[in-house]
């Protein structure tokens, strides 16, 4: 008996659902949704900042190619996340209408789509830009899918703390695309996003705790309670704010950035303090912090781009 025939019974009729694969009704829009376009936009923006503020010259088309590959790589990670998380997505209100739990895209299709995009984005970035950036992109996709989605997310309340690293890599990839190397400055950008992630997500988790509990995701408010989460939000914000200001005293950027970082950081601290003082079931302060945290990160990187990178970009376009 051969190895192939040993485990299979080829005479047994297949179940109806296995024998007849329903032709797909998935639209292009469903596949775009799989790529998490809103997350992708933040990834592209932070990668653009890393790419723009890095020293050295980069042809604008090479820069465009790098950003395109990073965007597609982020989309691949999103698709693979939705493939793996289809079961919990179906249970949570926020994610129940995603294409896989809705049945518009089959899990296998989402997996194939994600793997194809991941392969193409990494290889194209390597061939057309450089292999350090490609390696970092590959590691980011791996980290988000294997380490965060498949392992940490369902096993520890520290899931988004460690998993947040995946979202913090894009500025480093952008920097590596320009320079072919890494230094302290992109690591600082990494740290800003890394320490921004817990207050951002825990603020959301505070008013979505029931959703996470129903899905069995051990988010901090579900496991350790709201009071502990509120304290940890404040602690992480206390680390985040000095890190946000750090590029100014370190001489990486000017006083305008320093002032914006200080003022917006003070608002972050104030909102975190309000979250600490707030008592359940009130959730207004948590919603305010979640909303402002997005603006905070955008402000820091936008000012950095204008202060440091924009002139560089214009100079590069001129040459």
């Amino acid at each position: 008996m051969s190895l192939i025939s040993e485990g299979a019974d080829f005479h047994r009729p297949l179940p109806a659902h296995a024998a007849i694969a329903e032709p797909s009704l998935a639209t292009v829009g469903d596949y775009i949704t799989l790529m998490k376009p809103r997350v992708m936009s933040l990834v592209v923006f932070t990668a653009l900042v890393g790419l723009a503020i890095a020293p050295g010259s980069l042809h604008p088309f090479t820069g465009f190619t790098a950003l395109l590959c990073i965007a597609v790589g982020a989309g691949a990670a999103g698709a693979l996340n939705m493939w793996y998380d289809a079961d919990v997505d179906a249970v949570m209100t926020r994610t129940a209408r995603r294409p896989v739990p809705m049945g518009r895209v089959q899990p296998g299709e989402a997996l194939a789509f994600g793997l194809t995009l991941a392969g193409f984005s990494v290889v194209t970035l390597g061939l057309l830009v450089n292999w350090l950036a490609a390696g970092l992109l590959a590691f980011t996709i791996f980290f988000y899918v294997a380490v965060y989605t498949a392992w940490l997310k369902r096993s520890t309340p520290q899931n988004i703390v460690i998993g947040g690293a995946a979202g913090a890599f894009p500025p480093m990839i952008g920097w590596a695309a320009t320079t072919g190397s890494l230094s302290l400055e992109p690591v600082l950008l990494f740290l800003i996003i890394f320490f921004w992630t817990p207050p951002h997500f825990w603020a959301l988790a505070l008013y979505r705790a029931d959703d996470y509990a129903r899905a069995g995701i051990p988010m901090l408010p579900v496991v350790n309670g709201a009071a502990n989460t509120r304290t940890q939000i404040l602690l992480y914000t206390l680390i985040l704010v000095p890190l946000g200001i750090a590029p100014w005293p370190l001489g990486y950027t000017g006083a305008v950035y320093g002032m914006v970082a200080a003022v917006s950081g003070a608002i972050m601290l104030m909102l975190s303090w309000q979250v600490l003082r707030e008592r359940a079931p009130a959730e207004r302060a948590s919603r305010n912090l979640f909303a402002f945290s997005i603006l905070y990160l955008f402000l820091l990187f936008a000012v950095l781009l204008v202060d440091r990178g924009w002139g560089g970009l214009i100079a590069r376009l001129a040459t």
Partner: protein
Amino acid sequence: MGRANCPTGHVSMGVTMSEPHDDDGIVLTEAQKRARRSRSIAIALALAVLVILFYVMTLVKGPGVLVRPI
């Protein structure tokens, strides 16, 4: 056995006199055809972008494009 369209937009089993012959195989509904067409166009566009990307980058990098550290 071949499959024919059903009014709900799903593929159904069974063949009537006026429906396609057994050999026609899977018959897609209009909605499925539209979805497939839009997906095919998107794949074609993505491939075209990839070709243009490699073509322009070859011009940008110039003759040294094949000279790279391993």
